[in-house]
């Protein structure tokens, strides 16, 4: 991997990105929402509903680190990527890039920031203009932002092509002359052209052949180390995300249901959806050495985001759902140093609690009804990062049992 010659000011030390966890966040997202209007047919197109594509999510991406965003199609992960790159405007919520609010900037104000936030698209066939040469595709960001004088642009393009492992002499070729993996490299070169601080990678390898996927994943890792780029890595492939991202957020129907470091997420997932998702991944090794893992079968499909289920959005497919799940939306509680989960019955698979653990935080009884004298906990459940202090699962369970017991005892027969 050759280094970019003119970027000598940047540190060339290969720091492992996954050790850099406590650093300043480069991106902080708080309570982000995006609703798409659903219009009626006819001349007067009234808004008759809203697709709640992203509904109040909060997370942060550390500087030079990477956060994985996983979930099934329609869960809002790609929408999130497009909101952060400001390809779409958010309905509400805050997005802070290096401490600066970018959610409400106008296009003109946003222009200088586009240099810092770039995107890699999923489909290397439709994201490159077939009538432009590679030199023109990779050179356009340089021209628009006037990063290098026109005369040096070609040299810079060649440099970039070399960085991503393409032959720099191919700058005058057209995208159709390249294979899928090579095209994805062109897309990466284009995203790198402006030396962004944050790269939103929306399914960067899912359109590629398996043998090529590994090449591109390794390339992205090298680039991250070399140029200290933060990644928001959006993918549905849990194994690729686990390989790439120290922290992972799982989305379901527009909400984050669990966010934690990869060790916890893959070894001890606490949300039933995460458990089902992980158990559904066919695993070569497991099958090869014999035993097949117990698979959690989810029934049906993801409900429509136009009319999501009340309370917990996963309850219609959840095998543990009880009355409270329909009434109260589970808060995203922090239960470990780097672990938040949104489930009334959060726990490791096979050892999930029998009574809800969220009663104390919500001030409700086990049926989801408010208990007089109890208030919602003051804890800020929409904080993007992880707090230094948290209440662990056991304490949540204990303090919630109080409400279960009290209520049953008090209930007039």
């Amino acid at each position, binding site marked *: 991997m050759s280094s970019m010659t003119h970027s000598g000011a940047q540190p060339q030390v290969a720091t492992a990105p*996954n050790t850099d966890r406590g650093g300043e966040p480069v991106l902080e997202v708080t309570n982000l929402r995006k609703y798409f209007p659903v219009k009626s047919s006819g001349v007067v197109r009234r808004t008759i509903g809203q697709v709640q594509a992203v509904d109040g999510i909060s997370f942060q991406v550390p500087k030079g680190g990477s956060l994985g965003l996983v979930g*099934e*199609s329609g869960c809002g992960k790609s929408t999130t990527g497009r909101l952060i790159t400001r390809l779409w405007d958010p309905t509400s919520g805050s997005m802070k890039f290096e401490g600066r609010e970018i959610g409400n900037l106008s296009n003109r104000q946003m222009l200088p920031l586009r240099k810092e936030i770039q995107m890699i698209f999923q489909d290397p066939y439709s994201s490159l203009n077939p009538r432009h040469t590679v030199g023109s595709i990779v050179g356009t960001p340089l021209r628009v932002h006037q990063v290098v004088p026109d005369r040096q642009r070609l040299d810079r393009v060649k440099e970039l092509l070399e960085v991503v492992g393409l032959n720099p002499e191919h700058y005058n070729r057209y995208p159709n002359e390249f*294979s899928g*993996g*090579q095209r994805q490299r062109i897309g990466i070169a284009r995203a790198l052209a402006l030396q962004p601080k944050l790269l939103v990678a929306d399914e960067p390898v899912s359109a590629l*052949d*398996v*043998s*090529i*996927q*590994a*090449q591109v*994943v*390794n390339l992205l*890792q090298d680039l991250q180390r070399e140029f200290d780029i933060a990644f928001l890595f959006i993918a*549905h492939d*849990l*194994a*690729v995300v*686990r*390989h790439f991202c120290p922290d992972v957020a799982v989305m379901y129907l527009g909400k984050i249901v669990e966010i934690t470091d*990869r060790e916890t997420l*893959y070894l001890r997932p606490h949300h039933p959806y995460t458990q*089902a*998702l*992980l*158990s*559904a*991944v*066919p*695993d*070569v*090794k*497991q*099958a*090869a*050495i*014999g035993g*097949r893992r117990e*698979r959690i*079968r*989810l029934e*049906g*499909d*993801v409900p429509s985001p136009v009319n999501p289920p009340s309370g917990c959005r996963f309850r219609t497919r959840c095998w543990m759902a009880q009355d409270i799940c329909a009434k109260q939306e589970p808060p995203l509680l922090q239960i470990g140093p780097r672990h938040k989960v949104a489930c009334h019955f959060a726990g490791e698979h096979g050892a999930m609690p029998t009574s809800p653990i969220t009663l104390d935080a919500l001030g409700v009884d086990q049926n989801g009804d408010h208990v007089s004298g109890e208030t919602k906990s003051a804890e800020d459940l929409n904080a993007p990062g992880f707090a230094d202090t948290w209440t662990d699962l056991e304490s949540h369970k204990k303090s919630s049992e109080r409400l279960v017991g009290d209520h049953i005892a008090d209930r007039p027969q």
Partner: protein
Amino acid sequence: MTESDFLTSAPPASAQQGADAAPYLVVEDLTVRFPTADGVVQAVTGLNYTLKQGKTLGIVGESGSGKSVSSMAIMGLHDPKRTDMSGSIRVGGREVIGLSNNQMQTLRGGEVAMIFQDPLTSLHPFYSIGDQIAEAYRAHNKVSKAQAKAKAVDMLDRVGIPQARNRVDDYPHQFSGGMRQRAMIAMSLSNDPKLLIADEPTTALDVTVQAQILDLLQELQRDFDSAIIIITHDLGVVAEMADEVLVMYAGRGVEHGPTRELLTHPEMPYTWGLLSSVPDVTASTESRLLPIPGNPPSLLNPPTGCPYHPRCAHRDKVPGDLCRTELPELIPGRRGPAHLKRCHLANPDMIYETEVLPEIAPDLVELVTEESLEDTSDPRHPGSPENADQIDTPQRRAPDPDGEVK
């Protein structure tokens, strides 16, 4: 002589046939070529495999490795005017290559059915789901429209579409991705096919839905006792579904064997590459992925010798220039006659255990070496009873009769 005496004293090959049905599908020396303006595309070359009823064969390979082309040949989906095909495909004892289109139609959708990758583009958007299933049923059965419709409801119900009676008149766009794939499966199963070809049946689906569809296919296989060919690039899917795996590269079979055997003791560097380039949900996150360098070769002008040699990291272990000059045969390796590989390496099992496995799955080294120690304790008898149960070899053409015995 009683019948059982006769069976035991008969030559093993016929005993085999007596105990176990002859393979339903036999593909022999299949070669598919497409003449184009740029030259002849050698899409499939000299492919051999067999498949019995009730068994599943997984075909793995990259795009352009010939896995879909070879399966479409079984369905007779290649335009004979633009395709040169040779070799033999026998479905239930009947030769398929050279059949007229009319003769082919009785087979296609009847005895042999196919599930395509993308359920949205393979269903007709103008016709309701029920009409499309009924059409497939009426093409092979002389029944009234009402009966065909009832069959459609029945099939939709069978594949787990809720309220099939109400959904049967829905159009494809009203179904979700997983439901469309179920509808496709319902359509292909409506004539009780004996052979089902599933071409990347779950690639377009989410993992939880993929798990549902794979479960459904296994369930239906048990009920209908069909043979299934599952074409995929996902080794995980193959590991869960298939009894046997065929790895294809550049239009040729390069490794073939029982699933567990092939995945634990692969003997072809391309299979190693496939295994090492996929991250899995249990591997160490510190290790780097080991990609296969380079790109798949052009089939207009495939490499000389072993088609994989330009990308192979182990070619210098073969004496001389053999990999570049001579095409290795697909022959049994050192692990018994059921496991075939196309490679010049003399001791691939050793290289895999000492060099490849520690890199890709250090946690498995002990397990696999232990297992192979047990195996090598009896190296002269690969057909020992224990192995014979596991290794279910299809009958294969081999010069000596022993080669046919499992």
